[in-house]
């Protein structure tokens, strides 16, 4: 691979903006595919012949097919594939990368973001709510914290992908990605443990007169939802419970 060529700031900014909409045409057949081509397109205009040239058309055709990854870590693939195209890497090599990359980019992102960072930020916001923070403090805390990780990951991914090209697997060995998920999960467990009673007591307000019943219902309900795991989700069950409660109150 040649020395890292420069990608103008304007092009990087345009790719980053498009990365925010990478799932705009998400579907069950090509999944993220069209989004990958959409995000790469500003870089592909720099291929010999420019927009509409032979190299541009071949690249667009290649990258609009099936692709799946975590939406934030797809930035790694976009950077790597854009670099490979502009370096003139063989089509077969690019295709191998497109087949191999989705697995790790999906699983690392799911564990780090969906099962770690997002619920952790929710828990922090719930603690702030329970401690009496104002609405705008809670909202700013949640959005600021979450998007620090979200945007940071997208920007890092694009940079790492562009820097390493098709050898970007090294970048996925980054300690944050390799060791981050279990650490985030432990912090999440601690903060969520604090958040649940603190936020619940705030929500309960004068309903604290029912505290004994609430604690028993939470313990039994959590046990039931855990047992039903994979067969019936708790939020769906909640629809029936709340509807039955309203109905009973109205008809009794």
């Amino acid at each position, binding site marked *: 691979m040649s020395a890292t060529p420069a990608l103008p700031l304007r092009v990087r900014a345009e790719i980053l903006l498009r990365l925010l909409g990478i799932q705009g045409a998400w579907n069950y057949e090509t999944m993220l595919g069209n989004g990958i081509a959409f995000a790469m397109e500003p870089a592909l205009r720099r291929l010999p012949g420019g927009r*509409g040239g032979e190299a541009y058309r071949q690249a*667009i055709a290649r990258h609009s097919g099936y692709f799946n990854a975590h939406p934030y870590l797809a930035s790694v693939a976009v950077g790597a594939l854009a670099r490979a195209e502009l370096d003139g890497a063989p089509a077969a090599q690019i295709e191998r990368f497109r087949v191999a990359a989705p697995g790790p980019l*999906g699983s690392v992102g799911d564990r780090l973001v969906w099962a770690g960072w997002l619920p952790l930020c929710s828990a922090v916001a719930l603690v702030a709510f329970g401690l009496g923070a104002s*609405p705008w403090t809670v909202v700013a805390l949640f959005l600021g914290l979450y998007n620090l990780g979200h945007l940071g990951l997208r920007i890092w991914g694009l940079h790492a992908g562009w820097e390493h090209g098709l050898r970007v697997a090294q970048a996925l060995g980054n300690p944050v990605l390799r060791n981050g998920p279990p650490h985030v999960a*432990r912090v*999440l467990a601690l903060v969520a443990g604090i958040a649940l009673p603190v936020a619940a007591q*705030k929500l309960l307000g004068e309903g604290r007169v029912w505290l004994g019943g609430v604690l028993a219902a939470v313990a039994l309900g959590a046990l039931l939802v855990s047992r039903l795991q994979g067969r019936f*989700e708790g939020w*769906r069950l909640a629809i029936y419970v709340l509807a039955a409660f*309203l109905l009973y109150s109205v008809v009794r």
Partner: protein
Amino acid sequence: MLPELAVDWLQLLPLAVLGAVLGLDVVSFPQAMISRPIVASTLAGAVLGEPVRGLWIGAALEFFALESMPFGASRYPEWGSAAVVGGALFAMTPDNTPAAMTLAALAALVAAQVGGLSMVALRRWNARLARGRQAALAQGDGRAVLTLQFAGISADFLRGGALTLLALAVFSPLRVAILATFTFPNTLSRAVVVSVASAVGLAAIWKVTATTHGARWWLLVGLVIGFALAGGLG
């Protein structure tokens, strides 16, 4: 019927626009999680001049949302538009009205379920659209890529707006009828919502921490600290 519960239908338009924007955020653009209930309901409450009430129902819905994260191709509830519905219904109702929280939470959960189904339909529609452009894509037509992307984003925006409007149109009058005939005290209504939401939230965290060695001990430590803090605050 309680006269103070009457709906100002002009309020529904800005709420529908908010629902469209936040529904879009769930997956299509920009996935910055402004669609999470704790944010979305607060914003809906703020549109009606009641951000505090929006935050309260948003916090309750956030417990439910802990259970369903937007993992790839899995089917999940759509919280953005749904939380606008819940936030608006709770903010429209005067403080300490019995059943207000129960009804707002129920409406949001139903809207989230319908929203999830509408996202599945949208994804199928996106696939049909992509199939129709397959020849252009195979020839490397960059405009076809842009068209598909913007069509998907625009349709998702409309989906979120329509869902919000529909849910508010159904639940606003229903709310008036139910609140007028509800017979339990407000304290019990809240206790039921908090119990159900906390049970779902606790089970969700229990599940998430299952795969990490030692994480459940951290959860237990957190619960001890949390109960101590809650006791002090109560």
